[in-house]
Every structure is written in C-alpha cells, then in structure tokens.
C-alpha cells in the first residue's frame, strides 16, 4: 500500500499542480479503490489499476470543480526545491518555476503523458497501454505538450527581458 500510495500521490501532485487538490483526489481515489476492490480481476498490476482510478478521479475532479490550478501560487503549491535539497541552484529553481507556470496552461491529458514519459521514464508503448490510447496518440500528445510549453516559455522569456 505504501509504495503504491506514494506513487499515486506523486502523480496527483504533478497532475493537479497543488497539494490541496492532490489531497482531495488522493482521498477519493482510495475510497474508490476500497469500493471497487472486489471487482479487481487482476488483468493489470494493482498499481496500474489504482493509477487508472487516480487518473479518472483527477479528470472528474476538474470537471466537478470547474477550476484550473488557479488560486495557488506555485511557491505555495509545490515543494520548494531549496528547502530539502543540497546544492540549491537558482537557475534551476527559476526554470522549475517557469515550467510550473507553463504546466498550468496544459490540459490534463497532456500533463499526464509528460509525467509518465519524463518522470516515470515509460516508453511510448507502456504509456499507451496505461492510458488505453494508441501509441501514435501518445507521441502526438507529447509533441503537442512540448510545443505549447515552448511557446509559453518563449513568451515568458520575452516578457522578462
């Protein structure tokens, strides 16, 4: 339960962009897991099954709440890289903050593929299986996500200079 819970929480933090929403969705995810556990047939690994529930919960949470990562600043929302890590790098922190801001503008499906590709280092095939979409769609979503992020970061850089 522990490693699965941590994995799901990390995903939700990346997906929701702030701890408050991640906490809410984490709770609703594990309540659903308990409820649907008797229906679990073992076609996927337990972690994959729980992760799918978490993804559905994250999507429906957004629809229910009708909000998009708006009220919390990135400094409050996510762990401060400077507080618990050695070798604080201001340039990296700046990049992290810029990307955090950029992520706010991406739809959930694009954030999902970036998370699984860049953080979990899953292959296109593995992501496709996990999300239940064709491999080509995974590639196109990653491409689109990076394109949108690039546009945001360029615009952000232009505003700053």
């Amino acid at each position: 339960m522990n490693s699965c819970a941590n994995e799901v929480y990390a995903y939700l933090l990346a997906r929701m962009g702030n701890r408050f929403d991640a906490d809410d969705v984490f709770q609703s995810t594990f309540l659903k897991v308990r409820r649907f556990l008797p229906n679990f047939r073992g076609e996927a690994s337990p972690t994959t099954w729980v992760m799918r529930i978490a993804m559905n919960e994250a999507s429906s949470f957004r629809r229910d709440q009708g909000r998009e990562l708006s009220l919390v600043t990135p400094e409050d929302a996510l762990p401060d890289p400077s507080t618990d890590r050695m070798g604080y790098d201001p340039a990296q922190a700046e990049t992290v903050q810029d990307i955090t801001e950029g992520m706010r503008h991406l739809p959930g499906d694009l954030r999902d593929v970036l998370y699984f590709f860049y953080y979990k280092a899953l292959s296109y095939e593995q992501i496709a299986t996990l999300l239940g979409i064709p491999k080509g769609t995974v590639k196109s979503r990653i491409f689109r996500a990076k394109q949108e992020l690039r546009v945001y970061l360029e615009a952000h850089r232009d505003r700053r200079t």
Partner: protein
Amino acid sequence: MTVEHKDEDLDQALRGYYHAILDGVTAPEHLRRQVLAHTEQKRWYMTPWAPVLALALASASFFVVLASSRMAEIIFGF
C-alpha cells in the same frame, strides 16, 4: 535560464522539473489515516452479510409489532 528552448534543452528542463518537485514526495500520513478511518467507519455496512442482517432486523421488528398487537388484542379483549 536557457535562452533558446531547443528540444534537448526542454527535455532536460522537464526532467529537472519533475525531479525537483517530486523526488522524495510521499503521501502525507494524515491522509492515509483519514482514508483508513473512513474505510473502518463504512466497513460494517459494506460487509457481504449486511443485507442479511438488515432483513433479519426488519423481520424481527415486524414480528415484535405483530406480537404486540396480538397481546393488546388479548389483554383488552378486542
């Protein structure tokens, strides 16, 4: 800050971003406890024999009412 966001730079920045915000993240203990506590509260009516118990209680109530009315009939003679 990287001036040109080339593809490799963005790849690297994204990996750095995720590692910076997510490495070492664990689910808060209070959340785990809340989920478990909620489950314990709900467990009694989520058990498989809960419908049987509910039916038994309903039947018992019915017979108590029936017996009471029969007793009243006998006692008061109507």
